[in-house]
């Protein structure tokens, strides 16, 4: 496969995952603005979510400090100035798909192109006709359709591995970043215990990762900081946990190593296995003892290194 084709598939996966991340943030952000909190309170919440998407200052540049429902929607869904908005991500995923048309089945292309065409028609509709639920539904529905078409129709070849590597590394990164901006609420703090505030904060984290229902199925009982962190970091059943996301990346890298044999460097696979080993060597207590923020910083930089190694091994076109 052409290195450029592989690179486009990899980034197509990343952008599709990123679009869904933006939609989830939109859902949470909108929910926060509905809460009867002090103005200062929800501003902080909102700001931390923006930081998770890596766009806090950019938002301020475009909208000042006016945090309204409409501004949130504009920024996270429609704004092409925000490279992580749903519109930006779908457009770039679709453009990437157009470039590698020959590597996609017609069903995948159809799903991707339909998402893009409907996005364009949404953009032409008056904003008064659109509500947040419709926008998040739009994103998850099309995300699922594309994902389903990929799973049902793509050949299980190297292209499929690159596409899924993009998805899984992006998801590992997104979960870790969201945890990192909110890590302080997971730390045991005497003054909040039992005040209801902490509980609500954890709910926000779970909701931002579409995990509030799954969490209860997996753990039951009270929501505690330790359980939330365990669910999102080390639980192999949780679909967006760091462990699950990394496991999928490792699986796809192994697939590439098997397929390509010894002539092709495998530094990404080695690196990912190493990270996996170190992740599995801890339990959640040890992670808290070590420092949650330090742990997450380490993990985020590991994901970046794996991504760079994927680029060096496969996408840069060795001569």
């Amino acid at each position: 496969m052409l290195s450029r084709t592989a690179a486009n598939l990899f980034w197509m996966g990343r952008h599709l995952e990123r679009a869904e991340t933006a939609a989830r943030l939109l859902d949470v952000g909108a929910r926060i603005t509905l809460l009867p909190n002090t103005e200062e309170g929800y501003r902080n919440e909102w700001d931390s979510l923006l930081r998770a998407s890596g766009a806090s200052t950019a938002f301020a540049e475009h909208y000042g400090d006016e945090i309204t429902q409409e501004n949130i929607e504009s920024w996270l869904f429609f704004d092409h100035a925000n490279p992580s908005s749903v519109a930006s991500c779908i457009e770039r995923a679709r453009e990437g798909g157009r470039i590698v048309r020959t590597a996609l089945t017609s069903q995948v292309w159809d799903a991707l192109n339909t998402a893009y065409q409907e996005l364009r028609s949404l953009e032409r509709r008056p904003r008064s006709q659109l509500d947040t639920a419709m926008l998040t539904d739009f994103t998850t529905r099309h995300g699922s359709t594309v994902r389903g078409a990929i799973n049902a129709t793509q050949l299980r070849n190297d292209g499929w591995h690159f596409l899924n590597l993009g998805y899984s590394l992006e998801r590992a990164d997104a979960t870790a970043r969201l945890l990192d901006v909110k890590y302080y609420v997971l730390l045991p703090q005497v003054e909040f215990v039992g005040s209801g505030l902490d509980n609500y904060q954890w709910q926000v984290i779970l909701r931002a990762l579409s995990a509030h229902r799954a969490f209860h199925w997996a753990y039951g009982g009270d929501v505690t900081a330790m359980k939330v962190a365990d669910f999102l970091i080390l639980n192999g059943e949780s679909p967006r946990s760091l462990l699950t996301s990394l496991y999928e990346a490792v699986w796809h890298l192994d697939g590439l190593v098997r397929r390509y044999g010894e002539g092709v460097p495998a530094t990404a696979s080695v690196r990912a296995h190493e990270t996996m080993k170190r992740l599995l060597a801890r339990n959640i207590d040890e992670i808290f003892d070590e420092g949650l923020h330090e742990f997450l910083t380490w993990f985020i930089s590991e994901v970046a290194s794996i991504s760079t190694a994927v680029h060096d091994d496969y996408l840069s076109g060795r001569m």
Partner: protein
Amino acid sequence: MMNCYNEMLEGDRVREPYAMLSEWIETMPVEIRQMKQAEAEALFRRIGITFAVYGEGGDPDRLIPFDMMPRVFLQAEWRRLERGIKQRARALNAFLRDVYGRAEIVRAGRIPARLVYQNDAYEKAMANFTPPRGVYSHIVGIDIVRTGRDEFYVLEDNCRTPSGVSYMLENREIMMRMFPALFRNNRIEPVDQYPELLRRTLVSVAPRKCEGPPTIVILTPGHYNSAYYEHSFLANLMGVELVEGSDLFVDGGFVYMRTTQGPKRVDVIYRRIDDQFLDPLCFRRDSMLGVPGLMDVYRSGGVSITSAPGAGVADDKAVYTFVPEMIRFYLGEEPILRNVQTWTLWKDEDYRYVMANLKDLVVKEVHGSGGYGMLIGPRASKAEIESFAERIKASPGNYIAQPTLALSTSPTFVNEGVAPRHVDLRPFCLCGDRIELVPGGLTRVALREGSLVVNSSQGGGVKDTWVLTE
């Protein structure tokens, strides 16, 4: 209004090729037609059959209007066209072989040396080099118009990288999907073997140093190019990689593409970029689209480039006037398809005639394309004619003139129902070890009433083109 040949009606009588369709039109209710038309457009958009126009604002994905009413040829009509097209493609390739070799046609005084050797499209780098099988132009697109039952004229030849074949294939796909009954009830020659024939043609011109089955790629300028859809469509149907210049590099006398498993050798490049961008070491130094060192590999038999650089010297509007002469000179045959009478304005006598008759003539720039830079005398205002005359006076050598042809019409769906609209035809002739032509082509139609300009950039649309079996 000129008296034009109507391909459907002779007097009140419906001609044989359109007999079935005539009934189809009459029995289709307006609502169904509108619904089908909307369905066709949605299909084009969903499949992504658009041509991309960046940098003009608005929607970058434009649709070429698709007319559901097919254009139909009888088998006998097509056989004659086919012989004429193949004859012309053979002569054009013979001409290219000759002018990059011994130049006998020039020495024999049958074509002025100036038109060949001072032509911008002439490639010095090709002199004394013969590509595999002596083929220069592997895909020849010949634009044909009809003026009477048995009168066909060639409007121009395209020897470089003619586009539009994806529309020929997709128009058919969409028609078969929307109106299967039409295909059951008519015997229509298929066209979907084209990609396989193209692949076989490219395999047949593998370079000297290629051992084993050749690796073919299509070289595109990239996804911002207006014909990108066609490039990826053909790559997909042939099962070959679609590459950009940056995916290729030259090493040790061969061309390689960069893959996830390291370098892979490339043997045949079907390029859809212009000559001047192919190799920055040989042509334009600032080209970012090409591959440095490509021409050296080509000349030493390490790779084949289709169409060959310099093939364009056979297809400009000045050389065009000599194609009938080429057919006689190389093949010893009389041309089956006629050329349109052409006045070349660098000849004093022609210049005087044209300037005196601008209001009746079509004047074109020698190197222009896409329907731009031309004057259609009968449709132009006095002021337009005067200002165009000034441009001609400034450089007469840049222009040719032709009579305004009464282009035939084919029935076309319009708001009011069905009405005759002017059409042309571009078939795609493949030249490798054999010369192949699928029965069909791209019919372009001028959708505006009375308009003779079929270019998509100026309000033209496309139709499916049928050739009926016996």
